[in-house]
């Protein structure tokens, strides 16, 4: 188990990167704590797998260093880094039994035979595979195979970190929940540093203590699920986390007022920015409806009932905007919108403008 330091790390698949856009992974400088559960979240092609492969050693970064417990491992091979990785598709050794699969990494590391027998037996117990232990791994279901892939990492007690590359992609929906719970249990029991790559926000938010949100090769925010929800540091985070995502409306700031076209919205504090690319962000959960004439005039396009709540889809000065209505609330006649003032975030060039900005 180890802390992982990313020291001004960047990577480009182009041997001679010229512009920023040539980098699949833009510079990142961060330290991951020992024993933490982290999720790398972002859409396909955002660089999260690149980052994972750099950590596991399958890829050498073009810039910067990676350190495990302060020790530089940038140029070490995967097997020398003592990490485990679970891939998108379960990797098992077809011709071996479940037991042999779990013993394989230990045999390769010349662990004494009686120690292997003991650890493998423990692991079979932990993974609930006791009844399948002596069967060929080939015939098992996808989730059982994925458990074996995980087990091959866990059976080495001293692994520095366990990396997951979208491990639930091929698992049936009802098994996903079980396997995720199992993962959380194991994390609590064994305390390994775990890094989990996914594009599914539910997986990321339920699994991780801290979520690293990536967008176009850039780490746009690292934070707890609450932080990501309350204060998205980037409009992408606001849009990507939450369902429906945050409303992002182009506006102009004039002291304590935001102007969207002719509509004026009061802000919680004064902003001193003059850039052209200013946006206002407000989560649909903090938009309420009223029949108050003083509210923000909108035109309602649709109301979608999705069980626990309703989504009101509306139009404000040509921009689409959503509001969430709690169960039992109804849409008033001739409604206007009201924003919770202290929940409004202001973005300049897509990045959050923090206090004092």
């Amino acid at each position, binding site marked *: 188990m180890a802390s992982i330091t990313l020291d001004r790390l960047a990577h480009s698949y182009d041997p001679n990167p010229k512009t920023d856009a040539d980098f699949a992974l833009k510079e990142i400088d961060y330290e991951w704590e020992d024993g933490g559960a982290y999720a790398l979240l972002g859409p396909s092609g955002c660089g999260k797998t690149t980052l994972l492969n750099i950590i*596991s050693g*399958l890829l050498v970064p073009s810039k910067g260093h990676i350190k495990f417990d302060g020790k530089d491992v940038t140029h070490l*091979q*995967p*097997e020398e880094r003592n*990490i*485990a*990785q679970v*891939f*998108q*598709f379960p*990797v098992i*050794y*077809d*011709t*071996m039994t479940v037991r042999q699969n779990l013993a*394989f*990494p230990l045999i*390769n*590391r010349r662990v004494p035979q009686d120690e292997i027998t003991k650890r493998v037996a423990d692991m079979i117990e932990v993974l609930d595979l006791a*009844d399948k232990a*002596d*069967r*060929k791994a*080939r*015939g098992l279901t996808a989730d059982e195979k994925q458990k074996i*892939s995980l087990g*091959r*990492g866990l059976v080495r007690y001293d692994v520095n970190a366990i990396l997951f590359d979208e491990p639930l992609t091929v698992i049936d929906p009802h098994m996903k929940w079980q396997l995720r719970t199992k993962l959380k249990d194991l994390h609590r029991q064994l305390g390994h540093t775990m890094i989990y790559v996914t594009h599914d926000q539910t997986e990321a938010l339920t699994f991780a203590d801290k979520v690293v949100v990536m967008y176009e090769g850039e780490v746009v925010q690292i934070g707890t699920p609450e932080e990501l929800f309350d204060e998205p540091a980037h409009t992408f985070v606001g849009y990507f986390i939450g369902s429906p995502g945050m409303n992002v409306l182009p506006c102009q700031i004039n002291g304590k007022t935001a102007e969207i076209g002719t509509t004026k919205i009061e802000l919680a504090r004064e902003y001193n920015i003059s850039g052209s690319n200013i946006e206002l962000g407000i989560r649909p959960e903090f938009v309420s409806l009223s029949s108050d004439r003083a509210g923000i005039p909108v035109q309602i396009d649709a109301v979608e009932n999705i069980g626990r709540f309703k989504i009101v889809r509306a139009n404000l000065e040509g921009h689409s905007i959503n509001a969430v209505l709690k169960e039992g609330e109804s849409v008033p006649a001739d409604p206007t919108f009201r924003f919770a003032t202290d929940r409004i975030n202001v973005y300049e060039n897509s990045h959050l403008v923090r206090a004092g900005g």
Partner: protein
Amino acid sequence: MDKPYNNKAWFLVVPVFALVALSAIIPIMTVVNYSFQDTFGNNQFFWAGTEWFQDVLSSDRFWDALGRNFMFSVIILAIEIPLGIGIALTMPKKGIWVPVCLVTMALPLLIPWNVVGTIWQIFGRADIGLLGYSLDQLGVNYNYASNIFDAWATIILMDVWHWTSLVVLLCYAGLVSIPEAYYQAAKIDGASKWSVFRYIQLPKIRGVLIIAFLLRFMDSFMIYTEPFVLTGGGPGNSTTFMSIDLVKQAIGQFDLGPAAAMSLVYQLIVLSVCYVFFTVMSNVGVDKPDARVED
């Protein structure tokens, strides 16, 4: 649920049936017809019963040829399968060299059988052939036309040169279809090169390997053109394989009855050996029914 049943569907398979009948069933039945009868020309046939079969099975000539066939197949399989796997493993998986390698590998497969025979016939000649001349200059007394060992060595070398590519291409196709994650996982598990081959590559190319094995067995067991062109079955009868013997009997001596009987026996041997191979190889490494699952 009742399946809709419509006899008209039989009409849809008539074209296929007609084609198969023309290409396979009718010729085979003709052979069967010859194998149980005797003829002296003029389309006069006399019933011969199992006489020809008894003749064939009790002749040394048949058993000798069969022995040579098996020896040849075993030798070339023992060389071509490991060699083919080895070459496929060393071939690049991506980059500009892939098409170069593939085309180079495919070249021998594109050459007609009798041309292959002719190439090696000239190649091995001591007066004008590169191989024969070089060996001669090195002081090796090499002559495929008079020395049994030289004749066999040349035929085997020729077959290896001609057909190893097929094994290579099949194995290569199997190897490139293995997802990269397997190699990465093996690396992380600390597996040696041999373990990667034994536990990942070999199991994953098992399917294509069975096909390569069967194709090479059938083809080598029915070999005719190349040795016929190269040695004509000599020296003596040392490279007379069953197919060569068969042609001698049927067209050389016009013994249609014994030749027909021999063809049928020949075909039966190829079929049953392939069946045995296929059954055995498909079952190797497959789960045996697990007693604990049933109860």
